[in-house]
């Protein structure tokens, strides 16, 4: 049986040999110098890519830190609040006002302060009504802040937690 198999296999072996000869004859020689160039690229590009990503990450971090820190808003830039009553209530905010509010919350976080918990320094924000005594605008409490900023996802999570 094995002899039969071996004899039959000779024909298959011949076909495989023909396939190999034909394929090799048609194949142009490999350009191994191309491999040397690709090898140099493989050795240089990954470290370069890592360095570029690191530089970009550090640069962006510095940029946002430097440009954001120390900014102050004036009352004119924050028309966020209604006037004229003791209980400050929120009105629908325009897109610009929402953006300002988001930026404010972001800056507070960057300064290491929790916008959901801390009170704002007096005169920094909100109620621009000159009739309301200053001490009532000092230290807007958490509930008031949340009422004003409930549309900020971060603050919503603070409430739930």
């Amino acid at each position, binding site marked *: 049986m*094995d002899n039969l*198999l071996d004899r*039959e*296999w000779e024909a*298959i*072996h011949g*076909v*495989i040999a*023909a*396939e*190999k000869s*034909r*394929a*090799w004859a*048609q*194949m142009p*020689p*490999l350009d*191994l110098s*191309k*491999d*040397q160039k*690709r*090898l140099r690229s*493989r*050795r240089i590009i990954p470290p370069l890519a890592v360095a570029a990503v690191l530089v970009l990450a550090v640069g962006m971090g510095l940029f946002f830190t430097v440009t954001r820190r120390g900014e102050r808003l004036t009352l004119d830039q924050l028309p966020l609040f209604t006037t004229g009553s003791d209980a400050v209530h929120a009105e629908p905010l325009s897109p610009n006002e929402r953006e300002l509010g988001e930026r404010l919350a972001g800056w507070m976080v960057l300064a290491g302060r929790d916008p959901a918990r801390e009170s704002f320094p007096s005169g920094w924000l909100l109620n621009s009504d000159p009739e309301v005594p200053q001490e009532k605008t000092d230290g807007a409490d958490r509930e008031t802040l949340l009422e004003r900023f409930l549309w900020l996802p971060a603050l919503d999570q603070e409430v739930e937690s």
Partner: protein
Amino acid sequence: MTIHAVPPAATIPEAPLLSRESLAERLPGLQRSVFLLCLGFCGDPGEARDLAQETFLRALSRPRRLAPDALRPWLLRIARNACIDRERRRRIRRLFMPRVFEGERDQADPEHRHMRNEDIDRVRRAVDTLPRNLREVLVLREYGELNYREIAAMLGLKEGTVMSRLHRARAAVLRLIREENHGQST
């Protein structure tokens, strides 16, 4: 009483470290072996050329201490691994993009497809149908032209296992070809 001095243990010289340059000098002589092994695994001359190129790239990136007669098996092992990696990637692509894969197969190296005759195609189909453990041994033997000892060392098998698998692989290929011939004749 005669005391025979015990000779010092023979020191085995350490295999030379093949620098990248010396490796690059020796590789052209092994192009044929590498190419044919890749052809055995992938079945397409164009793809086999790419795999051979990849093999040499990998070999050049990792100079090794090799005895002179160990270079060829080492290189063929790299080629085998490159072929396995490509097959793995194709399986994943086939899983997620079956239509793209079908198009890829149909267009694989059209210049060579029309030059293959029916016999080669028939044998190729039979080999491709084999289970992986049998196909691997058959390809290493028939295309890579490795002997039993080299195949056993590469796959981590005993020589007897290699011979057994080779026998089963050949029998399976013959059976598949006979069935195909019988199917065509009826």
